[in-house]
């Protein structure tokens, strides 16, 4: 469980009356702090009653605005109000214990309003990423909508086909045939779409690989070496996992093989193939042989019956 909290925004001229009101209602003063934003300083005042934290925000206070002190109601706020003045440059007025801007005595004026280049770069990057993500999502939605208009969903299986709704078609059979043809065409188009999507994915992978190579080229040599080592380790892990899967398949194939001797014709075909592909080919050929044997058995039985 976390401590329950409420968040409200108030106007600057509501601040002192609110402090008076909350004091009268028996609220406990918890703290004051400031947050630097693009539009000014946000001042937060926190009070507590009955185990609930109430946070009030005075938004976008500018250096030319005078902020009344609440120390006449809650004396313990004097440290935080002095802090807000020195570190954020807020013009606090009538603080009960006023250090006159010399509590911390920092060398820079309002140092907490300065955004470091590292943080600025990260924030810009995050904004760009969020924007790109949003645009990509919107583009995908538009493309999907266009695709849906062009390719309506096929008639659902089991749905009742109304001959009147099929225009000039007069028989149920014709309508059904037409419907099935339409479904087949749509399915073919959808498959084509999936194929092109797969190609697009492959292109994206290639682009990502190229971008990564470019990024590594721009790195310091030792960092680039670390990144390459990490990539090599990842590739090795993936290869190992594939090898393990293949070994398992082979083991399973081997178990089947131990039950039944391998057909020399099949063995000849699969001897030069990789293990996983060999297992698939072998299974397919065996299935085919079984089908042929069954068909032959059925034909022999029919011939025998005919002779009788």
């Amino acid at each position, binding site marked *: *469980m*976390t*401590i329950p*909290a409420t*968040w409200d925004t108030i106007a600057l001229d509501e601040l002192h009356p609110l402090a008076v009101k909350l004091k009268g209602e028996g609220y*406990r*003063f*918890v*703290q004051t*702090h400031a*947050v*630097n934003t693009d539009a000014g300083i946000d001042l*937060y005042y*926190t009070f507590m009653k009955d*185990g609930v*934290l109430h*946070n009030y925000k005075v938004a976008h206070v500018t250096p030319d605005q005078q902020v009344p002190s609440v120390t006449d109601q*809650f*004396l*313990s706020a*004097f*440290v*935080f109000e002095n802090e807000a003045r020195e570190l954020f440059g807020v013009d606090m007025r009538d603080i009960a*214990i006023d*250090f006159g801007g*010399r*509590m*911390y*005595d*920092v060398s820079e004026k309002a*140092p*907490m309003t300065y*955004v*470091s280049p*590292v*943080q600025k770069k*990260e*924030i810009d*990057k*995050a*904004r760009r990423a*969020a924007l790109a993500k949003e645009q990509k999502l919107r583009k995908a939605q538009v493309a999907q909508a266009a695709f849906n208009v062009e390719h309506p969903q096929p008639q659902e299986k089991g749905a009742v086909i109304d001959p009147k709704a099929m225009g000039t078609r007069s028989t149920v059979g014709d309508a059904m045939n037409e419907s099935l043809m339409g479904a087949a065409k749509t399915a073919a188009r959808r498959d084509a779409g999936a194929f092109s999507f797969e190609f697009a994915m492959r292109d994206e992978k290639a682009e990502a690989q190229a971008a990564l190579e470019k990024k590594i080229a721009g790195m310091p040599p030792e960092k680039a070496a670390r990144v390459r080592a990490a990539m090599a380790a990842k590739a090795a892990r993936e290869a190992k996992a594939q090898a393990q899967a293949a070994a398992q398949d082979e083991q399973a194939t081997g178990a089947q093989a131990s039950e039944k001797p391998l057909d020399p014709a099949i063995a000849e075909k699969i001897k030069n193939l990789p293990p996983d592909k060999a297992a698939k080919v072998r299974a397919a050929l065996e299935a085919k042989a079984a089908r042929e044997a069954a068909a032959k058995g059925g034909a022999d039985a029919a011939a025998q019956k005919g002779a009788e």
Partner: protein
Amino acid sequence: MGKQTIIPFGPQHPVLPEPIHLDLVVEDETVIEAVPQIGFIHRGLERLVQTKDYNQFVYVAERICGICAFGHSMGYAETVENLMGVEVPTRAQYLRVIWHEMSRVHSHTLWLGLAADAFGFESLFMHAWRLREKILDVFERTTGGRVIFSVVKVGGVTRDLDDQQIDYMKSVFADFRAEYTKLIRAFLDDSSVKNRTVGVGTISRADAVNLGMVGPFLRASGEPYDVRMLGSNGYGELEHFEPITDDQGDCYARIRVRCEEVLQALDIIDEMLAKLPAGDIAVKVKGAPKAGSEACNLVEQPRGECYYYAKGNGTKYLDRMRMRTPTSQNLAGMAATLKGCDVADVNMIVLTIDPCISCTER
């Protein structure tokens, strides 16, 4: 009526482990007014969130103070977890409570030693600090550090306790409890201690509440407020918790409250160790706090309630991290308590508030 004089007290003073300056306006031997001044060790740690990502900042938060180190890392991590909606495994919450209560035991025994030193009881000071070493040994055995532990991370903790360590902790705490019970008899029953502390630096319950005081300083005036009673995070697992209070509001009451809080902390540790659940000690935290997201949190540090606030901006760097530490909230109460006291009692009163200037200035 005598002439008013201003006596500077601190920042260097035998009773002050950390630098704080007081301008004492004195008339004869009575303090008329006390004006605190800080700013000697301001490090701008809150500013560092702009250059350390939210995982790295745990280690900065821990370095705010050498005594409340664990509490700050825990409070910070809990706030970021609230911000990102991370659910911490129950075992990790239990482990956090255990280590946090050990911090309380270590902090209070350190303070008892300082108090004994302040009223001139050298051997009591040495015994208190000898006992504190036992707790530091347990910290070293379980976390690898004696002052800075680095066991908290966003999403849980980095170290687990095995059965052998738990048995070791139980045996150490049993020995500690036996010795500590004898030690506090000297603090609570010795006439020389009472002469120096009873009736000194009294502050009423109404004034304590009015001035927004927190921690043992508040509870010694009779106000039963302790963040742990709200049952947040791991403290919600406790079967019963009642804040320790005293209605006298003087230096002796503050000593008594802290003495008993150590025993209460040992009870909490025993309870948590007895019902420590099995399971993971951390969850993997991915991504970054959302832009504009805000969260706040309270933790009961050894010196009182500490408020944490965090604001995300969509990157792994937080937009703002705020810690309102207990001592900064108690400075107004300290100034009010000093009014009307004898000059000779100033050091005792300042010390029984247990000011932590590293926390205050960050």
